[in-house]
């Protein structure tokens, strides 16, 4: 157990060190593009969006939940990138030749990605606060939002790592990534509520786990516990199933790549 902690600690520290050395990407990670979505999109569509359609006092407070989950999506899907580069330059092989638990590398990556994601979600909620978005469920609500983010992020990061282990080249990886992320966003309730979508889009969006996550975060920000509890309970069920599926698939990909 001690050995396990030592390995995971050292591997996680490596991700932190790398991030702190890459000044440019550090900047982009912290002042995330998602923040611009919130600020510019939120204010830009203030007039265009009908408050009766979005059912919120203003568009930015509606959008906040979407931006939070989009951040989780982007970080999760990109979570395997560093492993991909490790695989390509042989560093992963060096790690795997040491007597570590096979799962340590992956666990360290989960810990790192989840921590960074949580920090970013806090930054986004902080900025939204400056624009007058006060989470209706208060401090505890923010904790629940972070937990929902973690539940969703674990599955996404697992998919991303599985892809990193299976793809033949990093070109493939980034193509799939680009192919996945935009439809995931547009076929969800991130920008528009399901009720306001064309029927076929609304139906597809129901199958998107992102929709469930957003629909649970949104009442936590906008309405209060009475309306949030149902969707929160629902998203836990959806995410447990989603995570189980993703973790099962990625464990298989990992075993195949390492066998």
């Amino acid at each position, binding site marked *: 157990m001690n*050995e396990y902690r*030592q*390995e995971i*600690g*050292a*591997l996680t*520290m*490596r991700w932190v*060190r*790398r991030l702190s*050395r*890459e000044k440019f990407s550090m900047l982009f990670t912290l002042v995330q593009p998602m923040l611009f979505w919130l600020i510019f999109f939120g204010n830009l569509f203030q007039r265009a969006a009908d408050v009766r359609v979005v059912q919120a006092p203003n568009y930015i407070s509606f959008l906040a939940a979407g931006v939070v989950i989009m951040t989780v999506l982007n970080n999760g899907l990109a979570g395997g990138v560093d492993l991909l580069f490790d695989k390509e*330059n*042989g*560093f992963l*092989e*060096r*790690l*795997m*030749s*040491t*007597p*570590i638990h096979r799962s340590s590398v992956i666990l360290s990556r989960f810990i790192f990605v989840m921590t960074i994601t949580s920090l970013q979600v806090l930054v986004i909620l902080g900025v939204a606060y400056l624009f007058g978005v006060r989470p209706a469920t208060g401090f505890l609500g923010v904790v629940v939002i972070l937990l929902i983010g973690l539940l969703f992020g674990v599955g996404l990061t697992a998919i991303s790592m599985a892809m990193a282990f299976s793809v033949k080249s990093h070109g493939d990886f980034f193509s799939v990534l680009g192919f996945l992320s935009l439809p995931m966003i547009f076929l969800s309730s991130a920008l528009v509520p399901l009720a306001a979508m064309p029927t076929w889009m609304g139906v597809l969006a129901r199958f998107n786990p992102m929709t469930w996550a957003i629909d649970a975060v949104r009442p936590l920000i906008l309405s209060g516990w009475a309306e949030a509890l149902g969707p929160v309970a629902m998203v836990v069920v959806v995410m447990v199933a989603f995570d189980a599926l993703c973790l099962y698939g990625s464990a298989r990909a990992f075993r195949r790549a390492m*066998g």
Partner: protein
Amino acid sequence: MDRAVAIDVSKLGKVFDGATAIEDISFQVFAGEIFGLLGPNGAGKSTTLRILMTLLRPTSGQATVLGHDVVQEPEQVRRLIGYVPQERAIDRFLTGREHLQLLADLYHLPKAESPRRIDELLRLVDLEDKADQPAKTYSGGMKRKLDIACGLLPNPKVIFLDEPTLGLDVQSRLRIWDYVRGLRARGITVVMTTNYLDEADQLCDRLVIIDGGRIKALGSPGELKAGLGGDIVSVTLSTAEMGRVETLAAALKGHPAIRAVSTTQTGLDIRVESPEKTLPAVLEAANRLACRLEFIEYHRPRLDDVFVAHTGHAIREEFPNAEEE
């Protein structure tokens, strides 16, 4: 000779998506020796090494490292080995010291012990001055040294070096040879791959020649050369005469003092019992065919000749003489 066997490889095979990378590889490595896998690009050296290091599962056959089966007991194997990969497996954002710290934790060294060990290794490979700079500021040779320090960190019983001197300048190569001999002096068993003939010749106690995924020869450099028997007479033809090289070879083949004739890029290599008896015969045959000889020399067999004799081709076709200069 009944020396302790450190590594026992038996009928190892590996197929990648239908393509055979290695086939029927068997050899033993004795404890405390420098053992080489010599072969051209794509021969299957790294694949063999990866299987021994538990990074790949063999498709067929078995291998043990210090008595532990690489498939059944990978954990035990990993605790006993060090690895210096072929690609510089370096994280450009970490400093040299941070690399070693990371590995110290992955090998579960006690926290109190690791700083001393890391300093010792940095001194061993002359990287003390650059230890706290990110690896992206290192030259190729420095990265290689850091790789070697990383391989030594666990204080392994067996160390695997995959092409340790690839792409290094002459001084760095010689220095690395010295390190490798130093490892042997400390009782570490060294398994290394190379496609440099002179490196295999001067550094390895014993070696296998691998080509096309199969073992072609096994022995000490001395045994392998002696195994060829006799000396080599090399004939160089002028470029204009190269078209007739086969005719000359055919004329020489039946001669009683000649064991084998093979064509090279510049002429013929003739394996002979004694050069004294053969030289006149060669000159006579060339004369009879009116084939102009540019140059003729004879020498004791080199590892190059061993390689050609067992594989039918030179290790690097493009630069036939690269090793001698």
